[in-house]
């Protein structure tokens, strides 16, 4: 029975090659595409899952309330960790570390290299699951000058990862450290990333400001005892800082490791439930949509072909087959096809995975030996087969045998309507995807071409290394003397990122109790010339302002506005809790930093001595080439700072880096909408072929009566075109609504233009017509004599 069925199915597949190809190929693309997306989703959802205590690990975060909003920071006071561990009974362990990573120069062999890492307390090794390949956690940080590295770092430093324990390595050309441990490499989907770890004590010793309860600049990781509800701790943490430092705005709470990657979005002090999870959900939905589009092809082609199968159904029924067994046969056929499709999908996955990895910037592996992946693939395949086979099997198995054997024309209208409905669904989804793709692209272009207030092009950023700060004046002179450089300046912050905000300031006319977050930047006077900020009032800072009393400062326009009407020059700002006082000497234009979609926040600039800065900004002359200018800068730094490798960034590259997730969505949506339309068109191609075949007699008659080829092609295309138009009518408002919601997430966003809909609709129609017209023209050109032969 089964054997005869498989034989029959296989025969029917090989007999209708084009039909089988369209079905299997469409399904294979659908399954491959969905599988790739699910691989990505799996990777995202399993973030940080290698840490066994994940459910009990938290990051201490802080809500700070300002006039207009609550800002959720991820840094906490340096003295908080030990205090809460001693006082709050639910806490099993805490670990402090510097926020993010620090880049240091390591010299093991002949060539020193930079590596990013963290300063952590020894508890880091017990809170997080970090298996040692060499050394052990108990002794790793016994000595102060020790460094624990990953296997990859070991290769980077020493060329191999064997027996590096106990080796000495020079850091920043100054101090020798001993390698006391080698860790198994950290998976890419881990939030905590580092190349090296050093004892926190080192960081503590060189950062005196950490000892104040009013300073928030560390990460504090917390491991709770089993069974402890974080909410009870949150209550105790809420006023914890204020007991020591009443003026602090920081309200500490626990942020679960389970949420670090996917739910890292806060508004008004609360998790929004959004973050990366939105993309995970979005792509999951898209994966199913693409699968469904592929299944629709199958349903449509199967029912469209039903006239050909009607005879078979009739004969089988006459011979005693029941409706149930026939339905099983057709579902079986669909499942069989989707199994074939899955087989091809596996090949497609293997072929395109590298490209997909580039697209999503991950190192996903297909893992065909992973039982979960096998189960997943089988589940997708069976689901596809069942969905695809469901409707056709019901439809085909219900034919009346007497009618079909007499050759009566089948009343096809019900199936035809469903078929049309399904095509409309396919094209609706495709058109929505096309519109979304265009809008996402426009939005990214919109932000990328935003006037930031400073000139990010041809602006070089170089981290200060070694004695660069000390020798700044000489370096600056040498750079200017190359003839390639317009100006050189220093700053204590990267221009494009946020950070170092302060709120404890007041001035005449400031409403009482008002808290505004203002950023402070310490710079050398050429900073505005180098970055392209324009002085619009008052004078520039000079080196003389570095130690002036009161401190001279330049503020941005938005801050000038905060300080009241009239010129801000001459107005004063005071610390609320101390005696510092600063006078405004100039105003520069606003510029965007931190959030590229947000509005420019106020900034105060102070003149400072080079030793207090960290970044050098080098403005290349407008008419000079990038390559030759870089070489010139490199030559100068090699000469003036020979111990360090030349390390630089372009600010416009950094700017582009800030759109990672938007770019990912943009790239993926392009691929998905292309796939959706391709799969839909495969189905349309099949349907058009079927329609042409079914109407071959009519076409013949019309030709005999004098219809032209173009007229006939139009006749055949018209019905399909109608469906695409209906799809557009449904897709337009849906796409508008969805994309309007997406754009709302960005303060600085485009307006949706009507022509986007027009273009998308026309594109879908054009592609559809191109698909159909092949069949239509072929049918219209065919010789009517053949179709009208009555014998």
């Amino acid at each position: 029975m089964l054997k005869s069925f498989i034989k029959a199915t296989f025969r029917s597949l090989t007999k209708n090659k084009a039909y089988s190809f369209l079905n299997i190929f469409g399904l294979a693309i659908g399954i491959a595409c969905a599988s790739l997306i699910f691989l990505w989703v799996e990777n995202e959802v399993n973030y940080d899952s290698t840490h066994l205590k994940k459910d009990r690990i938290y990051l201490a975060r802080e809500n700070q309330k300002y006039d207009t909003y609550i800002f959720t920071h991820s840094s906490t006071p340096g003295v908080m960790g030990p205090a809460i561990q001693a006082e709050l009974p639910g806490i099993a362990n805490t670990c402090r570390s510097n926020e993010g990573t620090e880049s240091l120069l390591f010299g093991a062999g002949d060539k020193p290299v930079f590596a990013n890492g963290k300063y952590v307390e020894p508890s880091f090794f017990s809170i997080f699951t970090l298996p040692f390949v060499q050394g052990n956690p108990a002794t790793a940080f016994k000595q102060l000058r020790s460094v624990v590295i990953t296997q990859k770092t070991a290769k980077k430093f020493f060329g191999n990862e064997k027996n590096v324990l106990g080796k000495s390595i020079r850091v920043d050309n100054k101090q020798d450290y001993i390698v006391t441990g080698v860790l198994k490499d950290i998976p890419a989907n881990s939030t905590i990333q580092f190349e090296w770890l050093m004892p926190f004590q080192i960081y503590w010793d060189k950062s005196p400001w950490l000892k104040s309860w009013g300073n928030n600049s560390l990460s504090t990781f917390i491991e709770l005892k089993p069974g402890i509800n974080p909410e009870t701790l949150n209550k105790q943490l809420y006023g914890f800082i204020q007991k020591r430092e009443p003026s602090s705005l920081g309200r500490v709470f626990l942020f679960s490791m389970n949420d670090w990657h996917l739910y890292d979005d806060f508004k008004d002090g609360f998790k929004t439930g959004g973050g990366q999870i939105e993309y995970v959900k979005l792509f999951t939905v898209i994966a199913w949509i693409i699968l469904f589009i592929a299944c629709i092809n199958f349903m449509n082609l199967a029912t469209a072909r039903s006239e050909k199968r009607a005879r078979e159904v009739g004969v089988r029924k006459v011979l005693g087959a029941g409706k149930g067994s026939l339905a099983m046969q057709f579902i079986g056929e669909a499942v069989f096809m989707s199994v074939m499709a899955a087989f091809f999908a596996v090949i497609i996955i293997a072929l395109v995975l590298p490209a997909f990895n580039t697209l999503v910037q991950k190192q996903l592996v297909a893992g065909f030996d992973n039982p979960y992946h096998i189960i997943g693939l089988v589940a997708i395949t069976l689901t596809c087969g069942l969905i695809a086979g469901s409707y056709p099997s019901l439809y085909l198995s219900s034919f009346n045998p007497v009618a079909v054997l007499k050759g009566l024309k089948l009343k096809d209208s019900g199936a035809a309507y469903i078929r049309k409905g399904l095509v409309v669904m396919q094209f609706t989804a495709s058109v929505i995807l096309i519109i979304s793709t265009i809008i996402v692209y426009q939005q990214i272009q919109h932000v990328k071409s935003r006037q930031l207030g400073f000139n990010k092009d041809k602006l070089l950023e170089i981290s200060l290394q070694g004695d660069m700060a000390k020798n700044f004046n000489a370096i600056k002179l040498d750079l200017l003397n190359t003839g390639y450089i317009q100006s050189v300046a220093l700053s204590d912050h990267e221009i494009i990122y946020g950070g170092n905000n302060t709120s404890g300031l007041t001035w005449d006319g400031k409403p009482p109790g008002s808290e505004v977050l203002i950023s402070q930047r310490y710079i050398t006077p050429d900073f505005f010339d180098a970055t392209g900020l324009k002085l619009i009032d008052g004078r520039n800072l000079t080196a003389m302002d570095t130690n002036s009393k009161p401190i001279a400062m330049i503020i941005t326009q938005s801050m000038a506005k905060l300080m009241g009407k009239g010129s801000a020059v001459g107005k004063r700002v005071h610390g609320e809790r101390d005696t510092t006082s600063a006078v405004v000497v100039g105003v520069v234009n606003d510029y965007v930093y931190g959030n590229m979609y947000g509005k420019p926040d106020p900034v105060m600039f102070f003149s400072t001595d080079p030793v207090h800065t960290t970044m050098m900004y080098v403005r290349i002359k407008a008419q000079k080439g990038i390559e030759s200018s870089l070489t010139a800068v490199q030559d100068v730094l090699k000469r003036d700072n020979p111990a360090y490798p030349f390390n630089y960034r372009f600010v416009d590259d950094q700017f582009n880096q800030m759109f990672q997730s938007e770019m990912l969505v943009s790239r993926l949506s392009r691929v998905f909408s292309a796939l959706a339309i391709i799969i839909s068109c495969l189905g349309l191609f099949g349907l058009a072929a079927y329609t042409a075949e079914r109407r071959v007699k009519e076409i013949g008659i019309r030709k005999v009566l004098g219809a032209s080829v173009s007229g006939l092609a139009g006749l055949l295309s018209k019905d399909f075109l109608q469906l695409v138009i209906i799809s557009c009518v449904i897709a337009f408002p849906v796409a508008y609504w969805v994309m309007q919601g997406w754009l709302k997430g960005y303060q600085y966003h485009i307006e949706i233009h009507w022509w986007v809909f027009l273009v998308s609709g026309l594109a879908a129609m054009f592609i559809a017509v191109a698909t159909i017209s092949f069949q239509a023209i072929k049918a219209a050109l065919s010789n009517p004599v053949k179709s009208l032969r009555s014998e």
Partner: protein
Amino acid sequence: MIKITNLEKFYRTEEVETIALNKLTMEVNTGEFVAIMGPSGCGKSTLLNILGMLDDPDEGSYVFNGIEVAHFNERKRADLRKHNIGFVFQSFNLIDELTVFENVELPLIYTGVTASERVKRVEEVLDKMQIMHRRNHYPQQLSGGQQQRVAIARAVVNKPKLILADEPTGNLDSSNGNDVMELLTDLNEQGTTIIMVTHSEHDARYSHRIIRLLDGQTVMENIMV
């Protein structure tokens, strides 16, 4: 009106080559009613299709109203055809999705007749064929005889000079068949040239002349009295 000389038509399928028409020569004059007879497969339909310019010959000459059309391209043939020739088939070949009226109307649409003129002419011809009362029916709702009358109405609505009928009575009972033959005779008496393929000696008697084919060649011609 029609003069064909040494007409040849081959069908090639993978290995076999069938000679459907073998150096066929014949002539049909304006106003004639010619019947073509012969066993199945002897090339009757092939001949009719070529005469109707649905198909082109491989060799030989076909002069229609003094114009050599054997090597006309598809467009020119279609043009000539839709103004000059009407077809009647054994299996009627009505379009199932269109009503009687719409089926008959089609040739007028393709020759660019205005809508009001079309209604007038379709109604006129439906009246003549006595199927006016069925104008809004679909082909399946009609008997075979009625369907063939619709087909004939459609063939003549453009007032063609030539009607080609391929076994027009083949699917009809004898009384309906006789009706159809009467119609064709009437048309012929009003001046339309008719070439009809038939298996029936009875039907052939309505014609002026019988051309008998065998294996793609004329074997005999009988002139009727």
